[in-house]
């Protein structure tokens, strides 16, 4: 089968240059440490890498949110704990005051302390977090939750909206508890039927009862303070449980992120040992092609014509 001379040369050159191309590609991969030099090398793999990158960024974004959530929860917890302590104190005072052995003057002294504690409550209720948002206002974070009018009546200015944060693709956690849920009201049965009495109104009524030396109302105050104290403890427990959930979510996120990172590395990064082996194989075949070409191209009948 006749092979023309040009064929011999052309074919050999073509094979050598394609081999050189492969060697250059391997070299580039080794230099960058990545399996893909450009996306068009393997579009499907590139798509996978992009998806994984997005997933990793999402996890980071959720972690950031968890950080913000934790700050918020810590602020809530701190003020609720102080509030709990204050309520504890008020309960003690209530028990003390309900004791028949106290005189009216004693009770008035107690009333003074209750009034001071009440002021502390108001400032605790109007806590702000690190970003300057009111913690207990629901979604009205720039409005103080409790404000006092001229008669000293405190009304709740916030709303009942619960703000949720995305902490994972499927999960949202509540960031806050609205003020009226924390500083709850009690139902007081009066002659006019059941009536709703606000948190601060309970304390105000109690201090009024102390000043008036009204034993029935002092007992009533004791019971009501007990109710609101229970509710506050519930809120505190709720904050605590939310913090636990946030922590476990954080662990979960860290795990997920580690998994994604590993997957990404698998897909994206070059396996050096196989790459180097491949490179030596390519180099070998290039050398073989070159030396065989030199040998074969020298064979010609004209060499033997004098």
């Amino acid at each position, binding site marked *: *089968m*006749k*092979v*023309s*001379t*040009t*064929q011999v040369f052309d*074919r050999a050159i073509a094979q050598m240059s394609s081999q050189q191309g492969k060697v250059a590609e391997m070299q580039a991969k080794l230099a960058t440490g990545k399996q893909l030099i*450009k*996306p*068009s090398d*393997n*579009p*499907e793999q*590139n*798509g996978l890498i*992009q*998806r994984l*990158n*997005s997933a990793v*960024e*999402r996890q980071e*974004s*959720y972690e*950031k*949110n968890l950080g*913000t*959530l934790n700050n918020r929860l810590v602020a809530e917890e701190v003020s609720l704990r102080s509030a709990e302590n204050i309520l504890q104190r008020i309960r003690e005072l209530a028990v003390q005051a309900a004791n028949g052995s106290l005189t009216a003057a004693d009770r008035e002294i107690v009333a003074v302390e209750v009034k001071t504690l009440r002021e502390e409550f108001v400032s605790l209720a109007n806590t702000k977090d690190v*970003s*300057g*948002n009111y913690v207990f*206002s*629901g*979604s*009205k*974070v*720039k*409005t103080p939750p409790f404000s006092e009018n001229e008669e000293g009546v405190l*009304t709740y200015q916030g*709303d*009942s*909206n619960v*703000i*949720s*944060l*995305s902490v994972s*693709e499927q999960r*949202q956690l509540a960031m806050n508890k609205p003020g*009226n*849920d924390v500083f709850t*009201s009690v*139902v007081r049965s009066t002659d006019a039927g*059941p*009536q*709703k009495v*606000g948190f601060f109104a309970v304390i105000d009524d109690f201090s009024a009862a102390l000043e008036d030396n009204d034993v029935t109302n002092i007992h009533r105050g004791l019971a009501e303070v007990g109710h609101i104290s229970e509710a506050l403890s519930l809120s505190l427990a709720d904050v605590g449980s939310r913090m636990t959930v946030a922590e476990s979510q954080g662990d979960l996120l860290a795990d997920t992120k580690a998994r994604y990172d590993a997957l990404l590395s698998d897909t994206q990064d070059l396996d050096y040992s196989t790459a180097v082996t491949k490179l030596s194989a390519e180099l070998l075949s290039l050398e073989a092609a070159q030396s065989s070409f030199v040998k074969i191209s020298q064979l*010609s*009948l*004209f060499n033997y*014509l004098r």
Partner: protein
Amino acid sequence: MSDLLSIGSSAAQLYRQSLSTVSNNIANLNTEGYSRQEATSVEGMPSQQGTVFLGTGANLQGISRSYDEFVENTLRNSTSDLATQQPVIKYAERIIDVMGSETSGLTSAFDRFFAAANSLSADPASNVTRGVFVRDSEALASRFRELSGSLDSIDNEVRNEIGQEIKTLNTLAQQLAVINGQLGEKISLDKQPARLLDQRDMVLRKLADIAKVHVSEAPSGTVSVRLGSSAGSLIVDKKSSVDLGVRFDNSDPGRVDILLDPYGDAYASSTISSGKLGGLINFRSQTLGPVLDGFDFLAQKFVSEVNQIHRSGMDSRGDRGKDLFGINPTFSINGTALSSQIDVSIDLQDPDNFQYSPFNMTWVDAEDSWKITSQQTGEITKVKNDLLGISYSGLSIKVQGVMQDGETLQIVPETRPAAGVVLKETDPMSIAAARRLSVSSNSDNIGDAQASLAISDNPYSKQFEYGTNILSLGNNISPSAALTIEPSSLEPSFVIPRGASDATLMMEVSQGSSLQFQVMTGEGVHVLGHAVDQSTQMALMSKDSGFNANAKYSDSYLNAEDSAAYKDLGLTYGFLAKSSEITTWVPSEDGTGMQSSIEPVDALVQSQPVRYFDNTTSQTVKLIDENSLTLNGYTLPALTVDAGQDSNAAMISEWLNAHSEETGVTSSAINEIRVANNKIDFYQQLEINGVLVQGTHNTVDSLSDAINAVSASTNVVSYVGREGGLVVTNAEGFAGADIRFGNPDKTQSSNALGVENTTYSGALELSSSDRVRFTFAADGRPSDLSVLGLRTGIYVDGAVDEDLAVYVTGSEAANISVGYGKSASTDAQDAESAFDLKFVSASEYQIIDRESETILATRQFDGVSDIQYRSAVISFAGPPAAGDIFSVSSNVGGVGDNGTMLEILALQTKEILAGGRSLSDSFIDLVTDVGNKATLSRVSQEALQVVQEQAAEARDRVSGVSLDQEAADLIRFQQAYQASAQIIQMSSKIFDSILAIR
């Protein structure tokens, strides 16, 4: 002659020529397209000597060219096939590199955008997070634009390359035509110079690289070339070549039209599917086109989804959110005679309706309108001129300046949707992160329930199934335009839709008819009609699913008025005519000019003929009971007809006027019968009120005179109307009295006037400076109004913000006419009027509109399901107690609310595109698709490479020069030449021997 010398010399010559052929082959070793030449020899003609033939040596027959037509053809075709793949791979990889990279691809921009949204949702009140969100949104918008720009530049490059290839193809075709001309000079192939044939094959091979060609060779060696296959377009024939041209379509990037003779007849050529050109065309239509379309679709979908969510939210100022992103196409405007005085500006108003195709606008002076022709579909629309902006295809086009009749403007959208994505809200405060509504528990609530609110994206999902939308009917309230419908208590006959304003329905009611209207809201509130028993209440709400299944029937607002009315709307069931005002121009007080003055116009009603009743009994008969009709708030007493009397307009008018002071309505009676000229039957006779009209007549005037002649006894006069025709009416002082027509010939039912022989009772004219408003009291029914010659109507004053169902109940068919004013958009009302949810018991609640204090609905509550009203969906944690009130109102002040931002965040993984793909996924799919096509091409390329190499080898085997072979031939011919030289020498020696003889 058979002679040693001549044989020798011819042989020497022959071998010399063979040697030069061999050396020619060696010299042309590296010439492209060279086919190996061989000198062929032929035996010389033998010479006859006696009975013996002696050979005369050998001669050069010719230089043959080693050439196999079939091998050549195979090589050409495999070259074409191979060349198809390369452009696809090259450009597909370009696209993947641009779209799939981390830095220039869309995925990373999406990730940043959603990460910013996530941070914003954690602290919506902070201007810092808002600023970051605005920044990353702008980054996303500009990434869309950049990517679109990159894709556009790839598009342009491909176009340019196609143009280049076509130019090259044309040049080659012209060259081939010249070669054909030269070949045509000789008749047979073996006489053609080999070099010319080599050139011809070279050109053909280059042609095949560009596009697959079908070559048919004539015996003389000339070729005719067709594109693609034997059925393709002819581009080169024996003498000439045809040029190719290309045309692109801006609005359809995949479309490439190849034309033949583009500067002449320009007709379409057959498809080119192979070769470089074929590869480029395939790339455009199968890869680039879908990518551009898919990317544009992605951009449009993303923008519309985000905008929809953003518009339903509230920004940090408490205002309703507007569009976050927009798509701004730019346009190029060309005109046939575009003078500098014409200014055109185009805005995109409705992105969903905009078709990205160019159109022409032609000014039609006579009709003061534009004739708009779409370039893509050819559809023609006529649009009336509007200086504020013509609406077409979602655009608002303003043309300022004087246009000539027939002048055409050509509007071409320059940019694709994705290239026009912009961020519209750049002010961080205007980012709508919060929900619009919030629910709060009233501080007095005793129950433990915590309410939470979500915004429904389908607030008006409940619509009435039955009932014709009145806006789809003609706007004509007169009785002649009435529709006839069957009554039904189960399904509404009409629906007054949300947004309709000043809706009116009027029904003709005859004597004794049981027809009634009932109007209800979707929550079962009966606003107009008559009180119905319980089974009818259930029936009304039972069939149409437009009623809320949990709603209870309520008649608290039935026919209520003014501040007690449902939502304080002005509703009337009965008859209503209002006074109005007109503005006139009067001389101004200081006499210098004119000033406008507003004059009130009284309400004026002309009824249809009143009920005629002849009381032939001996009792007084009540036509209208007491406690039936109320006029302007005053309940009218009974209308009675004494024994032997009859009811007529005059009598009824008197009855009404007796109460003018209380009602404010004055009435007068009129009885007029108009007859057209062509209805008058001059052959008949006429009796009026029993009195015979004398004489025979053949003109209207004489008939009229004859009627007037007996008017003293009939109290009826007549005159000829302005447009001809006869008008018969009461004489002075007898206004409203009955007019009875008869015919002395009792066999006839009609008379000279062409009307029936019966009593005509007249009509009422009611007027009031305020209004004429009839409503029904407890015993009133529409048939009572018909006694007064009035139709019964439903009137809605102003616009309604919810659908109202209108029932026509009764037992006979009804004729109903419909009228309405200009519909208002209810968007302002949709800004949600605040409402309260009041629980009257643990299982029943009321929805109360806070502004008008109307109970909009009374519904059952099962304790678990969510409550939806309009766009608010409220769910409870814990049971509400009786007396608990939950208020739903605007969320102004709730700057920390992140509800809307959470919804935008959900778009990241929400499956909003076909096949359950999210935005990011869909983009990656686009890139992967291109990748698949590139891989396919690569695989094909490898296989085709092998095929092409084999074909090249086969050709080389036939036509290629092998140095070894040539070296062997050299040796052969050299030896032969030496031998021939020896022959000559031998012949010389022989001759010497002859010469030596003395």
